[in-house]
């Protein structure tokens, strides 16, 4: 009876263990590391950083008020924790950005590869920096390490804004390519109609020209936007403002693409409509 009881208890414990196993292990499927996953990681890390930062601010105030050894030790601990989480936040953010770029179509290969290399170098720098922080023995060491990261972050921000710009450019390129594809098909169709001479193609050709002009204008706006980001310097005070300016240009480019597409719609409508016969006296 006892044996039965022991074996049943063992089975019961096994079931509990099975229930407590993480879903990922149970399903035997390693979830793909995509942008969503990377972004979740970043959000979580950033949340822990915000918390650590609040604790650092409290510990700093206590140290500056009381100047005791206990307060100093606590300040050292909280500053170290906050700095490590700050580095980790940047690292996970850059990883999410990298994944977003990888999942965006329309980005030119050479641009994407260059940014991959730069992003990887930044990720490595912040990882190393985070690991080296624990060797700091005093508050002064930590302040020095923080200053290193501060200086580095100015350069990192440029890379961040350039990557964001390339992502937007990719999106616009993708739409532009889709419109261009239709333009090519329409050109073929217009040529065919013209050869058959069963319909006047003058108006349709005009619409086509207008649509192409809009696409060219759109490309000009994209180039301007990218140029602003390329000209960004580490010491620029308003990097965010520069990025907003560039973003605005992307939006203008988007409007041109929309116009080009609506012109093509009009063109199709024109092809579908019969010619109006002019009255001859």
């Amino acid at each position: 009876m006892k044996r039965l009881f022991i074996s049943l208890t063992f089975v019961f414990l096994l079931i509990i263990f099975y229930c407590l196993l993480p879903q990922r292990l149970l399903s035997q499927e390693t979830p793909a590391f995509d942008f969503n996953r990377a972004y979740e990681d970043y959000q979580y890390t950033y949340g822990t950083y915000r918390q650590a930062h609040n604790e650092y601010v409290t510990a700093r105030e206590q140290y500056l008020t009381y100047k005791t050894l206990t307060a100093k030790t606590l300040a050292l601990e909280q500053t170290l924790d906050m700095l490590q989480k700050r580095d980790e936040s940047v690292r996970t953010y850059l990883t999410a950005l990298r994944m977003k770029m990888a999942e965006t179509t329309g980005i030119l290969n050479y641009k994407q590869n260059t940014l991959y290399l730069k992003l990887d170098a930044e990720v490595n720098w912040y990882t190393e920096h985070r690991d080296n922080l624990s060797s700091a023995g005093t508050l002064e060491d930590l302040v020095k390490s923080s200053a290193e990261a501060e200086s580095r972050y100015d350069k990192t921000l440029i890379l961040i804004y350039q990557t964001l710009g390339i992502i937007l450019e990719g999106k616009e390129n993708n739409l532009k390519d889709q419109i261009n594809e239709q333009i090519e098909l329409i050109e073929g169709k217009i040529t065919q109609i013209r050869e058959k001479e069963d319909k006047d193609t003058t108006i349709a050709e005009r619409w086509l020209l207008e649509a192409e002009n809009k696409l060219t204008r759109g490309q000009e706006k994209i180039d301007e936007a990218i140029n602003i980001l390329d000209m960004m310097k580490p010491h620029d005070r308003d990097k965010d403002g520069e990025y907003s300016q560039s973003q605005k240009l992307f939006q203008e480019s988007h409007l041109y693409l929309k116009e080009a597409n609506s012109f093509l719609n009009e063109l199709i409508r024109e092809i579908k409509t019969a010619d109006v016969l002019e009255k001859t006296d």
Partner: protein
Amino acid sequence: MAKEKEEIISQDFEAQIPEEEKPNFWEKTKRKIKGISAKGKSISFRDKKLFLVIGGVVIISILLIIFVRSSLRISRFKPLVFPSPSPSPYEEEITNPSIYATDSAVLEIGERLKEINQDLDQTDLKETGLNPPVLDMEVNFEE
């Protein structure tokens, strides 16, 4: 003779018992188990307790398995995402169609342009979620 009479009477009496008073299957099984236990070792209070514990464990295990299975099944299926209806632009009807109004290539291009229009409307050029993290870079212990 008297004995035989008594037996006959008792048999008749059993036959007269109404259906409702007859022991059902569960009662019969219970009696059988009791009979077995009476024949063999009598079950002690401790053993009864053990039976109860084992029974409890088995029931809880079954419930746990059902719970885990059902939760796994739920997680495997992604929630259905119903496409939100997009407003269809007002399109004037063509009153005098040309011979190309029903041309398959023209119709295909028209459909593709509609799809591109939808893509254009849905493209997010702000990407607010990807704004760089706001970090406190000025760490110092000076008053």
